[in-house]
């Protein structure tokens, strides 16, 4: 019996054309969610089926692919998606942000600045930023059509009324090109400023919800806020325990069952690069507090 063979990058050509047409419209209307006929993929929803379909539609033999899951190149999800494309498209894969031409990501934007010519593909679970405020698709469509985003500001205001500050820390809503309010996928709001005026093309794929949207390069992306409660980045008051970086997003790692923990860069490539360059952290397990604002 012959081993099953697939088309280049798994998807059939007709599906790729359909996704490619959706991507072009998404780029032409920044932040607008283009419906597409999402296919079943050989992985469950929630594992990046939207991102995988976008990557499959754009990937070519000359591309170098990097896949990250929460910043890490070596988690199960990242490794299996990388292997999937190494197998079905024969592309070169990498963990280096700089060497990659296509980066598929779940919930992080790499710390290293992206450059023109790179494509960042986000895996998106729920593309509609207004969904938890208005469950009906017909209504959210109309709200986007009318640019009626008062409800989102009310939600942020209620955060302030309840907690004294905007407590949304991930999937923080942004306005793209001064028109569409968009969900940046569940990236920490720490990453939001990286989306603004980015030289790379950013594509978003939501497989279960069947939506594709995009931010072209050099496009304004503004995190929603108020004059008296301006947007602030999530900030840590300690450096990475491994590389000493003070400007990166940190993961909390519990190191024993007595409550000891360490904070290390979520972006493994960035952290390893800094360590290779001689930067050292405390590598201690000293617990420290993080400040939500500062």
């Amino acid at each position, binding site marked *: 019996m012959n081993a099953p063979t697939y*088309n*280049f*990058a798994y998807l059939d*050509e*007709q599906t*790729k*054309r*359909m996704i*490619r*047409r*959706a*991507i*072009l*419209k*998404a*780029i*032409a*209307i*920044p932040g*607008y969610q*283009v*419906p597409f006929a999402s296919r079943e993929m050989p992985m469950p929803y929630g594992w990046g089926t939207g991102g995988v379909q976008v990557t499959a*539609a*754009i*990937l*070519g*033999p000359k591309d170098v692919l990097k896949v990250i899951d929460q910043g890490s190149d070596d988690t199960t999800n990242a490794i299996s998606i990388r292997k999937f494309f190494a197998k079905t498209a024969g592309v070169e894969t990498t963990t280096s942000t700089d060497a990659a031409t296509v980066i598929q990501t779940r919930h992080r934007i790499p710390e290293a600045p992206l450059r023109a*010519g790179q494509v960042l593909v986000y895996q998106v679970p729920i593309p509609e930023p207004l969904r938890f405020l208005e469950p009906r698709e017909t209504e959210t*469509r*109309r709200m*986007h*059509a*009318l640019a009626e985003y008062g409800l989102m500001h009310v939600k942020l205001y209620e955060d302030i009324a309840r907690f004294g500050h905007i407590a949304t820390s991930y999937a923080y809503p942004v306005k793209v*090109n001064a*028109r*569409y309010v968009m969900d940046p996928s569940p990236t920490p709001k720490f990453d939001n400023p990286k989306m603004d005026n980015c*030289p790379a*093309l950013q594509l978003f794929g939501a497989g279960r919800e069947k939506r594709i949207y995009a*931010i*072209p*390069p*050099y*496009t*304004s992306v503004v995190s929603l806020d108020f004059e008296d409660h301006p947007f602030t980045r999530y900030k840590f008051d300690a450096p990475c325990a491994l590389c000493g970086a003070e400007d990166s997003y940190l993961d909390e790692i519990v190191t024993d069952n007595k409550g000891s923990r360490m904070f290390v860069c979520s972006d493994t490539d960035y952290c390893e690069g800094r360590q290779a360059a001689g930067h050292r952290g405390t590598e201690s397990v000293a617990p420290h507090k993080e400040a939500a604002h500062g």
Partner: protein
Amino acid sequence: MAPMTIELQPGFADKVLSAQSTFRTVMEAMARPGQVMVVGDEVGGPSSMMPGVAAIALTLLDQETPLWLDEAFLRAPDVGAWLKFHTGAPIVGRSDAASFALIAEPATLPDLASFALGTPEYPDRSTTLILQVPSLTAGQTFHLRGPGIDGMTALTASLAPADLFARLSINEALFPRGLDVILVDGRSLVAIPRTTRLASSGV
């Protein structure tokens, strides 16, 4: 009487990989309006169709994309048959029902409002216009700005119709509805999505 036969030109030599690389060229063009991109793949096509237009057609068209052709393409004996054979796209008479419009002689481009402009809820349901223009290297210089452009970019082109950018100003009033345009000269192409504005318009 023997039936007249037309020898069809080939399409891509490698359907899968040429469609991929052409798509990346078009995607880069759409993401960086005003920049000239070049289709590198070998592509056949009818004599009246520029290779860039043929490559885009083979990459993006299929049975799901109603296609509108201008008079010049409709008159050419081999264009309809070539498109039908290689893409299967249904050729429609109503321009406002088309996903794509291929225009050989843009000087006679009909009123832009006659194409599909999308709806406020679904602005993506609009016609993408593909125009064969006289030159994307010489002619008048246009200063463009908008998403995808770092500040401002200059496009030097000889356009047809000459007042294309003035006519595309409907995109500004209609946004997010509007028309996305791809200009083709030989193998070179430039995309003008609906967000691109003339910098001199001052808005």
